[in-house]
């Protein structure tokens, strides 16, 4: 199984205090720390586990600037065999469709039978996976939380649906799957692991390398434009229950029943 996983470098929401810039064009990026998008990390782990079972290789790819190389290295330290950085000044400001187009151009250069994306990114719109599948004209399953390789033509995949229910599908290869967190327990990547892959060469592909017209992507080619960022108004405060533990529990049960949370 030749698996390609699309990953993204995002500001780490757990380790930053996110503030919006006064002009509303972006978040304040001084003092931010970045990491690999959480969903993508699960996707890479899943790919590695599949390859450990059935053989093949895992390639990680990202669209970004030279800083994005660090997330590729982290995923390679985890066990991905290859990394490709798609980077070009022309890519800056691309919308989701353009990103999908760039990824498609790179994917077609290779010979992959399975493509993973994260279900969404911390700073994204959860759109790239679906668009990528449509552009490639291959089947797509979203929010995948279970994968079984049936043979070299078919997978069995599980999807999380409303209310925590599960549905199972058979899907033909090649296909694109967007991976939900919780599908596995991603392995830890230590400093040592990252240092081991520190000197591995990571190819950088620009627009001309993958045959993309520079004006079709980037800010100029974007059909979706970011208009504003703002913090939502704070709503009314939470209701604090008071009294002894027993009283609080009773009140809570009453409230949950009244709102339909308990039957």
């Amino acid at each position, binding site marked *: 199984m030749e698996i390609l996983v699309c990953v993204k470098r995002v500001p*780490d929401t*757990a380790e*930053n205090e996110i503030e919006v810039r006064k002009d509303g064009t972006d978040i304040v990026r001084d*003092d931010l*720390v970045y990491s690999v998008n959480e969903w993508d990390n699960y996707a890479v782990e899943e790919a590695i586990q599949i390859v450990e079972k059935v053989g093949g290789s895992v390639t990680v790819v990202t669209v970004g600037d030279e800083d994005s190389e660090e997330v590729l290295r982290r995923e390679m330290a985890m*066990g991905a065999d290859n990394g490709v950085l798609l980077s070009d000044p022309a890519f800056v400001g691309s919308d989701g469709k353009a990103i999908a187009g760039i990824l498609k151009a790179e994917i077609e250069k290779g010979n992959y039978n399975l493509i993973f994306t994260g279900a969404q990114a911390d700073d994204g719109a959860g759109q790239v996976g679906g668009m990528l599948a449509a552009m490639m004209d291959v089947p797509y399953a979203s929010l995948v939380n279970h994968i079984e390789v049936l043979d070299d033509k078919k997978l069995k995949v599980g999807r999380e649906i409303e209310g925590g229910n599960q549905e199972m599908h058979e899907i033909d290869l090649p296909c694109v799957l967007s991976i939900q967190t919780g599908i596995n327990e991603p*392995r830890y990547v230590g400093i*040592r692991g990252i240092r081991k892959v520190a000197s591995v060469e990571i190819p950088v592909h620009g627009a001309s390398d993958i045959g993309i017209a520079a004006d079709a992507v980037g800010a100029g080619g974007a059909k979706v434009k970011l208009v504003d960022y703002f913090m939502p108004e704070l709503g009314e405060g939470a209701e604090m229950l008071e009294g002894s533990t027993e009283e609080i529990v009773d009140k809570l049960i009453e409230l949950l029943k009244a709102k339909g949370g308990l039957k």
Partner: protein
Amino acid sequence: METALIGPANASVLGIPMVIFSLLIPIVGAAVFAYIIARRLAPLVKAAPDNRFNRWPERIFQVLKIWFVQYRQPRYMVAGVLHIVIFFGFLTLSIQSSSLVVIGIFDGFVFPGLGGVLGHIYNFIKDYAATAVLIACIIAAYRRGILKPERYAVPEKYGHDHTAEAVFVLGLISLLMVSESAFEATLMAAQHQKGLAGEFVAPLTLVWLWKLVFNHTSIEKLQAIHVMSFYIHDLTFFFFLCFLPMGKHFHVITSIFNVLFMRLDRGNVKPVRYGVEDDKLDDLESFGVKKMEDFTWKHILDFYTCADCGRCSDQCPANAVGRPLSPRFISIKGRDKIFKNYPLRGDFLPSQPLIGDIYEEDEIWSCTTCGACEQECPLGIEYIDKIVDLRRGMVDEGMVPQSLQKPLGALEKRGNPWGKMEKKRAEWTKELPEDISVKVLNGKESAETLYFVDSITSYDDRMQDIGRATIKILNAAGIDFGILGPAEKDSGHEVLRFGEEMLFQDLKEHNTEAILESGVSKIVTADPHAYNALKNDYKDLPPVEHISQIILKSINSGAITLKKVEDDTKTYTYHDPCYLGRHNSLYNDPRKVLDAIPGLRRVEMIKCRDRSFCCGGGGLMLFYEPEEEQRMGVLRVEMAKEAGADIMVTACPFCLVNIEDAIKVAGMEGKMEAIDLAELVERHIVK
């Protein structure tokens, strides 16, 4: 001396000279024993290097104290006293047993020097020793077989019960005692009957008892019993010798070596690999212990030496709260695995990863590194280094629970496990009164003393109170101090102990540079984990002190004076933090500080000082989600209640977190209170 009976060297049965057996038994016994030991040594040879051939005076002192004087045995009084009796009995009787082996070949042999008065004295003593050993064996067998103290029980998941082996060996020892005395008594009875001079019979000993029995037995029968008991003793002796390396009684042979090579320092962690400097770590192919041979030879010797006494697990807080860890079975499972992989006959088996085979991930993460097990072990077996080495192996393989991955990632990126902003590390000082200024030692300002705050006190709302109290104390004591502020990163104390060696190295390098650049000549901290890290894990730093030491010195010098206790209706108890007490032997200073508050009534909990019970663990342990039935903190709070205390004083921010949580979990809010020593002292300073 004329003898009434023929000795085994000259006796013959059915025309066969018995001396053949006297020669054969020791030769075969010694050969089999040598073969077994050679096979047992194989894994030690294949194991990782260790650094124990050094500091001989200290090592010999440990042998005298822990092995010879059996210093740690009476910590469990009944078992300890029984063991001491058997141990000294063995030592005493080893001379007699050895000379008996020779007597079987050369009749009337005595060791040089034991021919005269000394020999009579020895005979007198060894008869009492043998009697005492027999009595001790009977009591011990009764304890193991009938009373069955709880700590010897083997939970089902750890395999079969070990009582049979224990009782069998007690039986062997008893047989040695009985046969040796019968051998002696038959001769004495015969001498007596023939009116010949005999050895003085020590009253009320086994020999004395046998002699009463044999006094009217015919010489022929005495002769037969005399020779028979000799060979029973001879055979039992060599059987016992060869049986020792088969199980927990291997300690009879290995204990002296294990104690000789035992860990001499506390609070430290072994390097990833002995002989590899920190800056060469990147060149190592693998980290930590993944398979059996990755353990050092001393750690394998530990496995051999475990006597299965259960004291470690009896003291282990993780075991007490039902976490899947029992240090005793770290050793027993290790030993059983070696026995299986290195059989006495046939090829050695290929080594498999230990995690998933004999050890589980959660088992190894469950340890708080409190050190209670090592403090207790009468054989000098160590656990912390093994646990850390196993964790290093797991980290290297990516086997880290999700609950720990986030804080480790945050430590890497932000230098603290919560992922808080570096620039906000000194925010907590803003709430200090205006008349107290805190210097931030960032190159522009200098101070004599550095207050190393560490992450929890910097970022946790509640623990910041400890930081502010510490600053007020340092200020009141007139100490010229400053903090590193944003230049400080987590000390990495638990990062090291959770096996993320390279991240620890990064944190250590960063802090070392920041501290050395600040130009201070002393370091103080109120966090025992930081204290231990800077003192024992870092190198070449200015001397480090815990705030309790500074407070005591300041009280003694008169720099600070404490007023009468605020609430004299309360009873206080002091909870020893593991990394202040057990790992650094700071037991008295905090207690003296408490006693310096006039009118403060203080009681001790049942587990205190070097038997203190861990609160639940600090650093990354706060993030780990263990399987457990109970919280360690809750057990600790209950101990405080039993002691009659209503205020628990500790001297560690992690202890305070855990104990305050435990008070809530135990539903003892309003009845029990927890406070840090620094906070308590600060409230009592006469301004």
